[in-house]
């Protein structure tokens, strides 16, 4: 069994194990063991990857495994990783690990909850390792559909509505992707040979620009829906607000990155001409996402809505950076995906923990929580500071890189949008500091908050892992940057060839 397939096998085995659990406690333990193994596996993968690179292996994709699945249609089970996928796998395993511990107190239908959650994660892992568009698409939908049950059954607020909206919008996105994929497939071999779904193979083909222009919007918008591209972001605030803690974490932390990764790996990488020609439209849309998300967050009173809008803003920045087509900005895009993934997961975990204690998510009903639960409060401040891009945390590194990259374009259009996008940082500071002030400082507004206890061990574990990752990336971004650059090389080369 190769290392990459293990990323799908481990979740499936964990699910199988959960089926035989008799009570809530066993379910939790089996899930925790499974996802710890997954985390270890991710660690091993990163190490092995770095060792291979250090040993001078310069193949674009490492640990490649290629098994023919449907010979007549040339569909393969084709997996492999480059630096970017490795980084994303690392992110996913951290978030799902923290997510298991953040949902330690799910009691209602806990078996089904953990099965759906882990099944979803297997879709995400599968997506990141796939090099074949068919399996990539399959895993994409596997990652989306359990959301319906997760939000609908264990969610809060208008959960039925949110679940349906989210599922239909994301599946609508995947419908567009399907059209784009078929377009790629039938133009993957202009010389008339066998067609292919393989990403590396298609990347060597030059698809006629008018064909590219037709299919690029399908792919970019399709993946963009998941990446909260304006105006297709509306599922995100409702969905995140209604979802249970671990699902919000996984969804904002990882699933939205599927969108960014897909835009990057499929839309931009495989259709570079169209990407260059149509970039301006999407740059405008992503700039709107960035600003709109940030301003949206200011007006919200519900903690989850604040964070959901802030995710729209941050994920908009990812797509924005991808469309800048230079190494610095793209590096920043990947860094931002990872940084935002961990940070937002931390946010949602904390919100879930706070909600579990105060039974409200409205910031004007809370206050002075710093005094009653110092540990969680400090964590919240850390998450907030990381989110507004304080040096020393991952958010700073990512956003700085993106804006430096974006500013390298010296035409008016790029300058203007960059300046607009940069201004979102200020707005971010406004809503983060406002929340921190109202939530944690000041006087305690409700007497029974005095009885609140601080974090339990599993909550500390969950937040601890995430905080460690944020600071590690913030303090030593170079190794991650190196990892990403490694994977970016061939992609940038391809984009630059087209540009000139």
């Amino acid at each position, binding site marked *: 069994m190769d290392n990459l397939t293990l990323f799908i096998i481990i979740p499936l085995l964990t699910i199988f194990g959960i089926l035989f659990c008799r009570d809530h406690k066993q379910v939790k333990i089996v899930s925790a063991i499974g996802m710890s193994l997954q985390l270890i596996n991710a660690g091993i993968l990163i190490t092995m990857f770095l060792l291979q690179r250090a040993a001078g292996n310069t193949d674009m994709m490492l640990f490649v495994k290629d098994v023919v699945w449907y010979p*007549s249609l040339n569909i393969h089970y084709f997996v492999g990783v480059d630096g970017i996928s490795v980084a994303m796998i690392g992110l996913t395993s951290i978030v799902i690990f923290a997510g298991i511990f953040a949902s330690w107190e799910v009691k209602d239908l806990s078996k089904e909850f953990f099965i759906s959650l882990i099944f979803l994660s297997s879709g995400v892992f599968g997506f990141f390792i796939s090099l074949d568009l068919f399996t990539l698409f399959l895993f994409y939908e596997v990652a989306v559909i359990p959301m319906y049950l997760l939000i609908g059954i264990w969610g809060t607020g208008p959960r039925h509505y949110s679940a349906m909206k989210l599922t239909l919008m994301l599946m609508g996105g995947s419908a567009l992707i399907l059209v784009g994929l078929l377009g790629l497939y039938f133009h993957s071999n202009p010389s008339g040979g066998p067609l292919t779904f393989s990403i590396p193979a298609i990347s060597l083909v030059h698809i006629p620009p008018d064909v590219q222009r037709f299919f690029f919007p399908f792919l970019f918008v399709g993946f963009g829906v998941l990446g909260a591209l304006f105006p297709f972001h509306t599922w995100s605030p409702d969905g995140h607000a209604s979802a249970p803690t671990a699902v919000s974490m996984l969804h904002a932390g990882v699933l939205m990155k599927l969108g960014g990764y897909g835009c990057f790996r499929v839309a931009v990488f495989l259709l570079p001409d169209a990407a260059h020609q149509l970039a301006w439209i999407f740059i405008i849309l992503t700039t709107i996402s960035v600003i709109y998300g940030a301003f949206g967050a200011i007006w919200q009173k519900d903690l989850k809505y604040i964070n959901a809008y802030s995710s729209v803003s941050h994920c908009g920045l990812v797509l924005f950076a991808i469309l800048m087509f230079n190494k610095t900005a793209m590096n920043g895009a990947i860094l931002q995906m990872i940084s935002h993934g961990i940070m937002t997961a931390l946010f949602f975990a904390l919100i879930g923990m706070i909600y579990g204690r105060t039974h409200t998510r409205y910031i004007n009903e809370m206050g002075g929580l710093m005094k009653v639960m110092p540990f969680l409060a400090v964590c919240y401040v850390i998450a907030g500071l990381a989110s507004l891009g304080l040096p020393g945390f991952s958010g700073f590194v990512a956003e700085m890189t993106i804006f430096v990259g974006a500013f390298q374009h010296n035409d008016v259009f790029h300058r203007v949008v960059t300046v607009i996008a940069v201004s979102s940082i200020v707005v971010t500071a406004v809503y983060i500091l406002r929340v921190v002030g109202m939530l944690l400082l000041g006087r305690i507004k409700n007497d029974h908050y005095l009885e609140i206890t601080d974090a339990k061990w599993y909550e500390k574990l969950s937040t601890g892992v995430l905080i460690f990752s944020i600071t590690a990336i913030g303090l030593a971004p170079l190794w991650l940057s190196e990892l990403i650059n490694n994977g970016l090389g061939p992609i940038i080369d391809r984009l630059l060839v087209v540009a000139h």
Partner: protein
Amino acid sequence: MLIMRHELLLVIITVILLLVEIFLPDNRKHTIILPSILLFFIVTVLGFIPGPTGELFGGMYATTPLILTMKNILNLGVLIIFIQSVNWLKKIENKGKIGEYYLILLSTLIGMDYMISSGDFLMFYLGLELATIPLATLAAWERFKEKSAEAGVKLIFTSALSSGILLYGISMIYGTTGSVYFREVMGAFNATPLQVLAFIFFFAGMAFKIAIVPFHLWIADVYEGSPINITSYLSVISKGAAVFILMIILYTVFYKIALLWRDVLYVTSILTMTIGNLFAIRQRNIKRFLAFSSIAQAGFILLGLIGQSQLGMTTVIYFVLVYIFSNLGAFGVAGIISNVTGKESIDDYDGLYRTNPLLSLTMMLALFSLAGIPPVAGFFGKFFLFTAAAQKGLYLLVIIGVLNTIISLYYYLLVVKAMFLNTSDQPIAYFRSDAYSRIGLLMCVAGIVIIGFASPVYEFILSLSHGLY
């Protein structure tokens, strides 16, 4: 002899069952259930043994490995239906009608087999009538209920009407080509206006059988009025067989006017998908709901026919196979619930998961498969159908198709929502379904889960499907 083995075996067991049924005393009629299933199981298994293929009666009857596969697929579906209907047949009000059920279903199946194997229009028509008329008696099973009687009458009227239209078309073909043999018609076909008109009549007749919009209106009332097991037979087996023969005739007889029928199919496919889907959203009765969803599925099947390629043909057969398992899974669960509780409304399914988790999970899998959600088989079927359409560059059709899958996902999710998300003061209480129902559902679930991953199934059908188009 061996060339016709599917039909002959069916005739043999039908005769055996008929004789046994006659000589059984009245109070022991129900003992025929198990032998019927076992005999049919043996027939199904025997059908899979490779044997000779070829033509009989001067080309009236023809069979190829591909046609044998189609028959095997239908047999599989009927086997599942037989197993699923045991519980219902054992009910007290069905006493004395058990034998009829098996005999009539088997004779319609014989009709379908002859229809698929036909090499000329006479044989085709004979098979078609044998496959439809007896069904009307089954639709009117509970003959003292108004709805059931209505279903029977509607079915017989619409099929008579559609047969009339169909025959009119066939008569024009005979008049212009001087033959009813497919092969000779194909040679003499020169796309004169009269022949085009003949095609239109022929297609309209078939459209009634498959329930393609705008010839679909009979379906909802008939489905609702019939007992669930008959409904599932109508929606899966009848429809599947009609799709098979439509495909064969389009690809052979009407080969020369492919450009024309492609346009016709293009338009009807869009209409069928869209209207089927939009009407399905509003249905609260599970049978009507599945009726409209099956109309929409027929629209997707047409998508594959348009491809007119090896890929399209394989995919249509593959999709029908997947559709049989998925739809029978959904009908099976609905049937069990209807048998035990008499409830057939989606609103009654509220909170079903908490009381009957396995049934709900089966239903969910089946619905997801119908909606085309991975990793179940329906995803592969839909994906390949779209691939077949995209192969011809029909991207607009693909876009309309994928948007329709989203609409269909919405109403499938409504049922999932009722079962998993909603709560109810009076949910359907926990019950243990009998062994037969379990086996039936297990077969469906196995099919739904395995067929997609098992690429050899697809590759096998592909390896046979050449030379027809």
